[in-house]
């Protein structure tokens, strides 16, 4: 067990290094850096001025060296200006060069400074991840039970009317991407001119103009049903359909097993057959799918947070990408890689515990 986990962690670290290097390389392509130089210094810089600005700010040198510096395994760059002051990656403004650390990459906790938010990246990340954490938690709370219920209900009698209706629902929701379902939900529930809100407002059943607010910004401070319903549902709907389909497949297979026949012919009622005999066997497969939903959720939040103006991880990522904020982008990719790899590990280990007949080698 320990050996397996250690080996998996080793592979994870290698994967993380490879992936972050790719992101680092892409964000540090020359046109990108030129844009950075122009936005930081002066928009009207000539080409040679850009080159010298980059040189003076540590963007010269090979991409490998800079990646090493960013990671914290290479000493940070230092430069002596004409006036004799020593500047460097690890030297804060006005700090004495002698007291500064030699290494200052993400391994040392120095994640850089966000050019958009004018804050250290760590602070930006902490705030946005916290916000996204809440969003994800509620998505999971809504999505997992709903999808399992839907899947089990449709899978227990394959081909029945219930199955066909629920399957249609599941296929519809899973075939609707968030940017479509989000817009539809807003139009339907959060628009003062369309959907049901005007009707409700006319009838005097709601005090405001819309049933739900069209933005979730207020949820940053205080989460309520009203301001969180739409973003949570937008993400969850897609997942519900997807997991429900998986659960249904697993459930229909279990229901054709001989031990189900055994139970039926023992005189067990249908409800008991489903609850006691089928359910646990049917839930083994969807577990992996649910774990794989976590990294996918990160993907979903990008759209939903932008749509509902909720300042979480996805929104931050979009801002960083749109404004060429290299350090923030890199940090976001580190987080994403980490989430993906850790959930994979958990799903592999959890599978073994759910199903004792599976062996990992």
């Amino acid at each position: 067990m320990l050996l397996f986990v250690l080996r998996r962690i080793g592979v994870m670290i290698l994967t993380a290094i490879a992936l972050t290097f790719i992101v680092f390389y892409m964000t540090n392509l020359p046109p990108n850096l030129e844009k950075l130089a122009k936005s930081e210094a002066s928009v009207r810089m000539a080409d040679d001025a850009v080159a010298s600005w980059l040189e003076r700010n540590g963007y010269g040198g090979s991409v490998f060296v800079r990646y090493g510096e960013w990671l914290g395994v290479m000493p940070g760059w230092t430069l002596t200006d004409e006036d004799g002051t020593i500047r460097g990656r690890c030297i804060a403004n006005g700090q004495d060069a002698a007291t500064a650390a030699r290494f200052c990459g993400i391994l040392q906790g120095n994640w850089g400074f966000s050019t958009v938010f004018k804050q250290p990246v760590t602070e930006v990340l902490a705030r946005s991840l916290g916000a996204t954490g809440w969003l994800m938690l509620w998505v999971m709370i809504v999505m997992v039970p709903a999808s399992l219920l839907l899947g089990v209900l449709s899978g227990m009698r394959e081909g029945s009317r219930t199955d066909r209706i629920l399957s249609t629902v599941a296929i519809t929701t899973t075939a609707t991407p968030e940017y479509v379902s989000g817009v539809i939900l807003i139009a339907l529930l959060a628009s003062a001119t369309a959907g049901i809100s005007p009707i409700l407002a006319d009838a005097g059943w709601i005090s405001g103009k819309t049933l739900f607010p069209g933005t979730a910004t207020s949820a940053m401070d205080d989460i309520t049903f009203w301001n969180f319903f739409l973003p949570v549902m937008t993400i969850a709907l897609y997942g519900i359909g997807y997991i429900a389909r998986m659960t249904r497949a697993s459930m229909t297979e279990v229901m054709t097993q001989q031990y189900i026949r055994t139970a039926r012919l023992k005189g067990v009622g249908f409800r008991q057959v489903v609850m006691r005999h089928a359910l646990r066997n049917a839930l083994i497969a969807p577990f992996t799918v649910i774990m794989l939903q976590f990294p996918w959720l990160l993907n979903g939040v990008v759209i939903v947070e932008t749509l509902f103006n909720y300042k979480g991880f996805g929104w931050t990522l979009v801002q960083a990408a749109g404004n060429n904020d290299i350090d923030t982008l890199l940090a976001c990719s580190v987080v994403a890689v980490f989430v993906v790899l850790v959930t994979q590990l958990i799903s592999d280990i959890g599978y073994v515990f759910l199903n004792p007949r599976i062996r990992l080698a």
Partner: protein
Amino acid sequence: MSDTTWDSSKPILEIENLSISFFTRLREIPAVMDFSCTVMAGEAMGLVGESGCGKSTVALAVMRYLGKNGRITGGSIRFKGRDLTNMEDEELRKIRGSEIAMIYQEPMASLNPAMKIGAQLAEVPMIHQGMAKEAAWKLARQIVADVRLPDPDRIINAYPHQLSGGQQQRIVIAMALMSKPALLILDEPTTALDVTVEAGIVDLVKELGTKYGTSMLFISHNLGLVLDVCDRLCVMYSGEAVETGNVEQVFDKMRHPYTQALFRSIPLPGADKNSRPLVAIPGNFPLPHERPAGCNFGPRCDYFTDGRCNAQDIPMVQVPGDDRHETRCIRSTEIDWNAPLAAAKVVEKTPIGRVVLKLDDLKKYYSVSGSAFGGGVGKVVKANETLSFEAHEGETLAIVGESGCGKSTFAKVLMGLETATSGQIMLFDENVQNTPIQMRDTGTISKLQMVFQNPFDTLNPSSTVGRQIIRALEIFKFGNSDDERKARMLELLDLVKLPRAFADRMPRQLSGGQKQRVGIARAFAGGAKVVVADEPVSALDVSVQAAVTDLLMDIQRKNKTTLLFISHDLSIVRYLSDRVMVMYLGHVVEMGTTDQVFQPPYHPYTEALLSAVPIADTRVQKKRIVLDGDIPSAVNPPPGCPFQTRCRWKSQVADGLCDREVPPVRMLEGGHQIKCHLPDNVLAEMEPVIKIAAE
């Protein structure tokens, strides 16, 4: 546990003119037509027939569990006078499991893998008698002890996968007995089990039947088992009952041509592949929607008369002079039933040629890791220990043993799917023990082929039968054009008695037996010289077995093929093999010619095996030797002689030698080898297990 007392002179189960159909989008497929049978209290009724004859459908109809597209289209099933065919679901549920219980073919699949044994057992009285949980578990523990499982406290807290196949089947039986049902339906209850385990289960079923006075509906394709267990039997063919009567009546005075043909196609003692070959039933089982007019068996029957047998529906008629003995044959009084079998073609014994395969001290060990995550202490499984033998051209060498004895491992090593740990395999003039299959050249591969045990997994589900055989021909570089290969493929289908139309079918449209024939066709496609047949007929019906063994023998004669016939079925082994090798836990415990192995002196394990095989002949008297327990795990074999834990002769060996030392291989006269410590005088005094009473 019936709420009303039942007059035991009336039948428990009465099925009258039952017809069942399955409805597909295309058509209605009649599965059972005009089926009648009666089971009296305490009686064991056997339902015998080949797969697809509708015997399981009858059983499931009694349970009213026919699936979505199955429907009872006529007749009635009366259980204790109540008609089950129009019973409400709720009423049915009360009868299922409490008054009628069922035992299934595959115990592993019939038990819920995620529930403890105790919970699965206790459920029955909890549902039907509203018993409290503690009381139900106590009852479960007691019934587990009743079905003679060791350590019931451990077992009721175990999960199904922690038990062996035999133990699982005992649990299924225990589950059926939890509420003392009036009728027990056993659907091929021992087909998936080893013979020595089967013998134990059969004993148990018989004993429980007498103890509780339960009536039984025993479904089997094995006539020997039916003779062992049942009082009466009903032979089914293509959805109809063709003959019904007492076991003795049907076995000794059969009055239907199909029953007769069935008995002629099974290897009874005295049958011999050269002088008295089995008579396979000609033709094929009719597909349900292609049944002939009149008698279903007509087209395959030796006594068929045009204009009579196919003129009208044939009714069941009483056999004159017999009590409750009926047959569905209008010529039953005209046929001379005692006429000797028309002289079957007697063939020359295949001459035994040079040595083609020689094994010397072959060993195959596996190392397995201890815990679920690959840590822990590794263990060594000794799958094959010191295997040495020679096989000659044109010879049939049978390798006999129960699951886990290492016979399939040996086949894998020979085929090159595994490489040997040590020792040598000489195939013709080539050492192949260390050459895995991907390193072998086409010649070697087409010379050495295999017929596999499980026909369900050995065909590609997404490719037609014809295409798969042609693919084999292509690989073996047979023929010059596609047309040539196609013609050869159709010939191969004829050879394995499949209709040519099957070339365009997908494997899922074939029955298990038909799939196995395709497997055989594929193995012989390249003109194989040495064929390893790993339990090739164990999944097939009896009449099919005869045809397939016949086919194997035919091809063997033509090609001088060396056949390594791996099997646990001693009847078929006795019938077709020249030499026999008996294996137990990786050791060869006995080896010799067929006569030597089937006559005393025996190795104690061979003796038990012989005793366990059910024989469908009322004249045969057998000594009953039931082995206790299961085969020890190969991961943790007993010290000393591998068989010492179950051997009934152990006390005859002085000072516990069996516990300490693996017996040496002893040569008896005529090259008969035996691995046993028993002294010569004890071996000499052994009595034959099977005796045929004088007629």
